[in-house]
């Protein structure tokens, strides 16, 4: 045993702890400079698994002086997806080095660290730096960054499962590729919760190195039992058929809160968390003072206070969103409540894991359905948890927008040489298939701003200096770039602030634009009166009385994962065949009976289409039960194919169970079926047609244009200056489509639609399944329980094959007739 080992083992012994076997395994691999992925849940001791080997090594290399040597330069870079986690990690690691009298500094470098600390870090890096993918790129955008990373030995990417399926994951891959470019011997480890594709996750993190060893995967032993209970309505007959709030079940939730110690209540949206907080207070005013609210739009200080108060026991109940999904060991939490469908098994299990942190303790989670059909989901969830059916997190491949942002990042700091960088990129998982012609297009794009030059052009961005380095010289452009590093597209947000001073958080600009001075709205768990708007800040004061307006936040709606939708179809079949011992399916029986009376309850051999009329026009409902994403694609495809039969305009709505086509005129569904609209023939061609007609790519382009730096959100507090440089992503899409249809960013928008909403493979499977079923068209007078929730959805897609002028004339006639 080495000195380092002895010292660390002693540290554990002093605390009456013993390192787990898997922790020792990770130490061993790290000390042998192996790379890998640790599969461990939050609160399992993963920090010690990955931090200790660094200390062991340090002690072994400096046996006499490890307690004296200061200012040793950066040793460990710890990347975490959530700023909230960084603080906890910092305290944890600082405790260890303090106990061992090692004069190391552990610091954070995230968006909410003060600028004076950031300035100090520029001159002197701490030994351990905890940061986010975005902040890592901001570091790479600073002049002199190679010096700051010179001494770096290890990189840890925490909660990798949260990053891998997103563009933040790409940012992480790129950041690591640059660090490896400077120091190929880095020891790199990822940490991930259990997902369906752990091995792939390890490969993505470590990149493509054909001759290197495969990364090692270490699994932390975990045998925590999860108890899932559902909160059932007393009378299913009066339980709503649609809706996503679920507040009807508050009387049933209150007793659970009474019986539990500390409790986390997870909601799916920020608006929903605000409303639940408000209604719970109304239902039981005694909760005031022991209950708090936590979501991503609240001010950092507010959230910190909530987290600390929960820790210390001042607060008993927190109503939250995914903002508390990750990290922070809430040892005191003993109950978790999930409001509405979590949409995926992994997310549900992770949330359940927030409770019962003591070794050997079980986790308990309550599921509160927000409408009747979610009871089927409850049954499906219980099964899926039992079978540990975790979803895959699929990596994104070759997004040009993130690459363009990265190139500018390097160009504003030290510059780059294209040949050397191309080589680094080819070793990342994301860009392993980057082609030379694509690379040249991108280089031309950042240097010349796209195709053909005219003599009036003054495009100014990246220039090549005399050493062949590609650099940005314009300081304004560099400054604007540094401010917009990141991959999370957001609407323009306004700060919400009391007149007297303290910050409450942020709301979307479009919500505030609907309010007038003196209006009240509910935010941060308080009723507020709008006093004035100035410099991108909404000044408010507390208001008396109730207010119904709650900021709703735009943003995509989550889809049921394919694992979950498969289970859902299975449960539906069980319910149909009456062979079930599930309490949830038992409870929903009366609703399914109504479905049978008004329409049919399709069995596995039937595909149901319901057709009905209202004063809005003709409705056709289709029920594939494939989850929202597949329905987005399928509905666009079916609408497109029907629109080829006759000029017609559709508005399209969908949920996880089915979709609706609505038109002002009769939908020729029988004729369409004769033409076989579910056929696989010409699938690619028709998918492309529907992408265009349904404007799906145009919408995708919104995020892409922000990341690639086309759309500039403006400087905080100084909005005016940026105003003349603002053009909406939609307008950019239009001009590129018109003038540069081969634009790689436009191509990317199409690729993203095709890989998410209109995934050809998944569509094909769905179509094949439908083709093996017999299609049943039911003409119905009253909306069925399946159809109703889709019918009331206001968020709609459009698709039309009518001539624009014909449509306007029709509208004109209707207007005159009314």
């Amino acid at each position, binding site marked *: 045993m080495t000195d380092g080992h002895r010292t660390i083992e002693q540290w554990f012994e002093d605390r009456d702890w013993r390192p787990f076997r898997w922790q020792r395994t990770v130490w061993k691999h790290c000390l042998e400079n192996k790379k890998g992925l640790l599969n461990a849940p939050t609160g399992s001791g993963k920090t010690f698994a990955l931090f200790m080997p660094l200390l062991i090594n340090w002690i072994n290399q400096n046996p006499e002086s490890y307690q004296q040597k200061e200012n040793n330069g950066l040793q460990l870079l710890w990347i975490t997806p959530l700023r909230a986690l960084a603080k906890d990690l910092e305290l944890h690691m600082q405790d260890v080095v303090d106990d061992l009298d090692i004069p190391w500094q552990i610091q954070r470098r995230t968006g909410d660290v003060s600028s004076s600390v950031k300035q100090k870090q520029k001159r002197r890096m701490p030994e351990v730096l905890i940061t986010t993918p975005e902040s890592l790129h901001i570091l790479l955008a600073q002049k002199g960054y190679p010096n700051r990373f010179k001494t770096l030995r290890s990189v840890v990417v925490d909660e990798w499962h949260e990053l891998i399926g997103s563009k933040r994951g790409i940012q992480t891959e790129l950041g690591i590729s640059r660090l490896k470019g400077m120091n190929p011997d880095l020891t790199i480890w990822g940490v991930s919760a259990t997902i369906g594709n752990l091995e792939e996750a390890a490969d993505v993190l470590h990149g493509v190195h054909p001759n290197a060893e495969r990364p090692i995967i270490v699994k932390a032993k975990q045998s925590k039992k999860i108890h899932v209970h559902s909160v059932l309505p007393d009378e299913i007959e009066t339980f709503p058929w649609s809706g996503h709030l679920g507040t009807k079940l508050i009387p049933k939730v209150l007793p659970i809160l009474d019986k539990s110690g500390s409790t986390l209540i997870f909601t799916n949206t920020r608006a929903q968390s605000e409303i639940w907080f408000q209604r719970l207070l109304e239902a039981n005013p005694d909760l005031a003072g022991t209950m708090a609210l936590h979501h991503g739009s609240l001010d950092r200080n507010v959230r910190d206070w909530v987290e600390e108060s929960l820790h210390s026991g001042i607060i008993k109940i927190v109503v939250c969103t995914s903002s508390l999904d990750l990290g922070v060991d809430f040892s005191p939490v003993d109950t978790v409540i999930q409001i509405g469908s979590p949409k995926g098994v992994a997310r549900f299990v992770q949330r359940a894991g927030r409770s019962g942190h003591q070794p050997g303790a079980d986790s308990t989670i309550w599921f509160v359905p927000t409408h009747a059909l979610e009871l089927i989901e409850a049954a499906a969830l219980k099964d899926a948890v039992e079978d540990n059916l975790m979803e895959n997190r699929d990596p994104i491949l070759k997004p040009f927008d993130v690459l363009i942002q990265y190139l500018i990042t390097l160009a504003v700091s030290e510059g780059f040489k294209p040949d050397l960088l191309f080589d680094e990129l080819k070793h990342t998982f994301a860009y392993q298939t980057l082609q030379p012609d694509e690379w040249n297009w991108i280089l031309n794009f950042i240097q010349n701003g796209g195709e053909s030059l005219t003599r009036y052009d003054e495009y100014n*961005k990246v220039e090549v200096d005399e050493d062949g380095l590609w650099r940005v010289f314009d300081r304004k452009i560099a400054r604007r770039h540094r401010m917009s590093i990141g991959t999370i597209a957001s609407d323009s947000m306004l700060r919400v602030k009391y007149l007297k001073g303290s910050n409450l958080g942020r709301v979307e600009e479009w919500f505030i634009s609907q309010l007038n001075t003196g209006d009240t709205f509910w935010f941060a768990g308080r009723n507020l009166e709008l006093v004035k708007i100035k410099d991108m800040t909404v000044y408010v004061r507390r208001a008396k009385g109730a207010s119904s307006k709650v900021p709703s936040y735009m943003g995509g709606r989550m889809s049921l994962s394919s694992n979950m939708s498969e289970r859902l179809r299975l449960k539906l079949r069980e319910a149909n065949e009456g062979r079930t011992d599930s309490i949830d399916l038992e409870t929903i029986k009366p609703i399914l009976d109504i479905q049978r009376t008004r329409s049919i309850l399709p069995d596995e051999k039937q595909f149901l289409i319901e057709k009905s009329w209202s004063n809005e026009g003709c409705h056709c409902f289709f029920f594939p039960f494939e989850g929202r994403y597949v329905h987005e694609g399928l509905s666009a495809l079916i609408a497109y194919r029907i629109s080829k039969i006759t000029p017609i305009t559709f508005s399209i709505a969908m949920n996880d169970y089915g979709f609706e086509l609505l038109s002002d005129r009769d939908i020729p569904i029988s004729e369409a079926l004769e033409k076989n609209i579910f056929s696989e023939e010409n699938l690619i061609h028709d998918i492309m047609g529907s992408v265009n007609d349904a404007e799906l790519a145009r919408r995708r382009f919104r995020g892409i244009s922000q990341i690639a730096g086309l759309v500039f959100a403006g400087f905080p507090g100084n909005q005016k200056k940026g105003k*003349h440089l603002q053009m909406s992503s939609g*307008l950019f899409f239009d*001009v*590129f489509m018109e003038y540069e249809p081969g634009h790689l960013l436009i191509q990317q928008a199409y690729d993203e639609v095709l890989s998410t909403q209109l995934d050809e493979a998944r569509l094909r499977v769905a179509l094949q399944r439908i083709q093996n079923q017999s299609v049943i068209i039911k003409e119905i007078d009253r909306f069925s329980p399946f159809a109703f929730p889709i019918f009331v959805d206001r968020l709609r897609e459009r698709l039309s094959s009518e001539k624009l002028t014909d449509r306007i004339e029709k509208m*004109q006639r209707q207007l005159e007739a009314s």
Partner: protein
Amino acid sequence: MTITILNHTFQLMPERAIHWLDESTLIVSDLHLGKSGHFRKSGIPAPHQINQTNICRLNSLVNQVQPDRLLILGDLFHSDVNREWFQFEEWRNSHNQLNVTLITGNHDTLHSSFYNAANLDIYQQHKEENFLFIHHQPEEAEPEAGFIFSGHIHPGVKLRSKGRQSLRLPCFYQKKQQLILPAFGEFTGLYMLSEKEAEYIYPIAEKKIFYLSHA
């Protein structure tokens, strides 16, 4: 489509312009020339064809209508000067018979020497007959006598119909004593106005002007 205001005849054109027949005047607003150049100079790769397209559209419109005068209701040039101004100047020189009057808007911040060189008559606002031409008429302003033509807003309207269908279109927006012109420039965006406060709305789609009346 032709409308009559205070006994004068105006032709509303789907090219997003008005032909004032009695005075042989072509009226346009919010061209935002130089927008692509301004973006490109700041490192944002807006296609430079945007500028060229707008000038071509102006050119063919002027050639078609053959007016004595071109009246621009502000926001001729998008921002600080860039070389795309010379693209406009070149066009201007090829039409030196044409009188060009610019009512300045909030975007028209170039030094006056540029306007002089391009031989433009510059006014803050301009009164003629019983008509007032201005870039933007603030809401609280006293409704002076006469009828106002203005721009600035880039008006758009949302049409709805059965089956939860809707469309957004640029429009001429007429309310009491005022007509707001749509932005002439391409890629300038729309600002949706409520149908309720309008007397008449003339939406534009596919080279055609429609007509909605709100009594």
